């Protein structure tokens, strides 16, 4: 029997519907971010940087694309015999199968998977946050406290505290109360949805929870409150640093743009806790004589003839002569033909913007989140299309546009 100190279970099930047409084709963890990454890269890289060699990825929405992105995990150094990264869709037994109901249900359905490794600890994380964290430091904290459960927590602005699960602790960090989206928060310490459990303890609770027909099978709503009630040793591990949920178009846009600051709070150039990613095989990018590129991120495979300012480009983007890209995000393999104007827009993977289109036209200079223009994946605009600021285009056929 194998015996591992810990394994990680990564919850990547969410469809991420608030990201609109960006998640029409792929699950949220597979959405591109930061010029060459996908959102799940950050969690997987954290695992690698923390010395975790076994990761179960729980997914159900469009699992095939995630499966093919993760592959055998070699991008994150997780292609390890006796460990590795496993995509775990819901299991079909002889009597059929069903989607995961809640976070605890997803882990509960994979007890056998975890038991194979016979781990002392299980780390539960989610695949849709942008942050760098060495989980092994959190594990040390967990061990030193002889804790049953440790929850990573971060201080949020008081005015936002009401949107989070708030942890009220004693002076040693032991959790005394668990306040899910409190109206009058007693603290601003918010749960980051990162948990370390002693596996035998968690297993017992998961089995109990699965037998409770009343339960929503969710960690935050059911399992953790029950554990607290039973008096388990639960501690809050305070994390300092950048941590962002990019769950909405606005937060996604802002988090990308944050990287363009002179000394960004989240530094992808920092060699410490490196972010790994599956790189497409592309040559260095090319910037033509007449092009202008300023205050932007440009990865491999891009070809720029036009003007790019304060924008994030992804691999394989083409910007034609005379095109002007400003304050925008162009996802992988986007092709913007000559003479286009693109302003404060997000353009989805492999979309082609024909010559002289205007996207996000008429934006004023004051930032208004509602005015981000979003074009979905694989959209094909002919010459001269004008898309008004704030639109969201998920389909385009013969001049008819479907605004989602």
């Amino acid at each position, binding site marked *: 029997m194998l015996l591992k100190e810990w394994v990680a279970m990564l919850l990547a099930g969410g469809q991420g519907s608030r990201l609109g047409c960006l998640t029409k084709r792929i699950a949220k963890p597979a959405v591109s971010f930061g*010029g*060459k990454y996908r959102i799940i890269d950050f969690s997987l890289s954290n695992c690698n940087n923390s010395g975790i060699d076994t990761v179960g990825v729980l997914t159900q929405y469009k699992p095939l694309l995630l499966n093919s992105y993760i592959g055998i995990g070699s991008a994150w150094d997780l292609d390890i015999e006796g460990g590795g990264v496993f995509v775990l869709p819901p299991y079909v037994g002889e009597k059929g199968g069903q989607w995961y109901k809640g976070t605890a249900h997803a882990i509960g359905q994979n007890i056998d998977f975890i038991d194979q490794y016979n781990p002392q600890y299980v780390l539960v994380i989610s695949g849709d946050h942008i942050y760098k964290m060495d989980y092994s430091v959190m594990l040390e904290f967990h061990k030193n406290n002889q804790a049953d459960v440790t929850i990573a927590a971060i201080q949020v602005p008081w005015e936002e505290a009401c949107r989070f699960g708030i942890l009220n602790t004693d002076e040693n960090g032991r959790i005394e109360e668990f306040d899910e989206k409190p109206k009058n928060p007693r603290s601003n310490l918010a749960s980051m949805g990162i948990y370390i459990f002693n596996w035998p303890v968690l297993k017992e609770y998961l089995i109990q929870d699965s037998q409770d027909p009343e339960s929503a099978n969710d960690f935050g709503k059911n399992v953790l409150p029950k554990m607290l009630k039973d008096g388990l040793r639960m501690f809050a591990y305070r994390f300092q640093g950048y941590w962002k949920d990019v769950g909405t178009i606005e937060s996604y846009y802002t988090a990308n743009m944050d990287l363009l600051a002179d000394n960004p709070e989240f530094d992808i150039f920092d060699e410490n806790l490196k972010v790994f990613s599956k790189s497409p*095989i592309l*040559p*260095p990018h*090319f910037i033509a004589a*007449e092009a*202008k*590129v300023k205050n932007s991120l440009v990865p491999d495979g891009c070809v720029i003839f036009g003007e790019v300012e304060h924008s994030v480009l992804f691999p394989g983007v083409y910007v034609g002569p005379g095109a002007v890209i400003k304050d925008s995000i162009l996802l992988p393999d986007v092709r913007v033909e000559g003479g286009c104007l693109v302003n404060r827009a997000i353009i989805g993977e492999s979309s082609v913007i024909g010559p002289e289109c205007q996207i996000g036209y008429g934006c004023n200079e004051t930032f208004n989140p509602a005015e981000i223009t979003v074009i979905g994946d694989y959209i094909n605009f002919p010459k001269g299309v004008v898309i008004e600021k704030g639109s969201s285009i998920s389909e385009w056929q013969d001049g008819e546009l479907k605004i989602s």
Partner: protein
Amino acid sequence: MGIITTTKSEDILKELTQHRCMSSVPFGGRYRMIDFTLSNMVNSGIHNIGVITSHKYRSLMDHLGAGKEWGLDRKSEGLMILPSASPSIFKKNIRFDLKDLYENYEYLEKSRQKYLLLTGNNMICNINYKDALQFHLKNNAQVTVFYKEEICHEKTINELGFWDVEADGRVTGFHLTPSVGEKNKVSLEMIIMERELLMDMIQVAHAMGNWDLADILAANLNDLRIYAYQFKGYLAKINSVESYYKCNMELLDPDVWYELFFKNGPIYTKIKDGPPTKYADDAKTAKVLVGTGCKIMGNVENSILFRGVTIGRGASVKNSIIMQKTEIEENVVLENVILDKEVRIRKGTILKGGQDSPIVIAKKSVI
């Protein structure tokens, strides 16, 4: 199966081959020279590849590892690094040194493929060897050599040599001086033949004491069915610092860029996991090829930046090749220079080379 061997003395690249072999000289913003040949082979379905290398093998080893990036980290076959028979320093320019292959005769014997592709290590192109093998089979050839038509302007000896080829592709002659002003068929130093025929030739070479395969072929034009396959694409021939510089600069033509990196399949190289390149507010770039992980705060024109290069504020870089992790501090002025890896050019330095004779700065220098 494929074998990549050394055909040139490695001294011709001077400082660039001081601490590395020709195969591992950086090229094109992201690659090592061997990446192109290796990728062409892999893209053409060749998965048993031997690389013959000189004693300066360490950087090549580091680069290739077990061949994972090329899909060659296999239990059976895959990538094999083979020793050269003699240190490159003693090596003359010889068109395929069979001595190197004699040294690795056992490797040839153990391989199971019927056909073998032998190439040098200083030609860079994107070529489909499957087509060439089809040509070889269709002509029922015993040997297929490769050529490219070029108009030659000078009647100087070209050590690569030229093939005389009939309309049906049959080779009838070989010579070292071109016809001026006409199209000549310059040899690409790539050869397809049956593995067992090569083994026979090695035995012959051993008996005769002449190890130059091109000589042996030229002497047996009548006895062997030798055909020549025409390559029509972009070709970079690296045989001096000047040609190295010129060929890198040719990549700044988007058509060449596209052909070399996409035509018959991608070019694989070691993955470094660097972030995207960041252009600052005051960056100014025109006609540049830039790898990942650079930070550009100054002016760059008509140049190639490898991965992880920093260009400081107010710096001006023109007609230059800047290799990996090199740091150009503020207000530096560079023109016609080649900076090797991890060089540091301190504030305010000015370096200008001649138009066709760039200054080369060795690895890890601080200037």
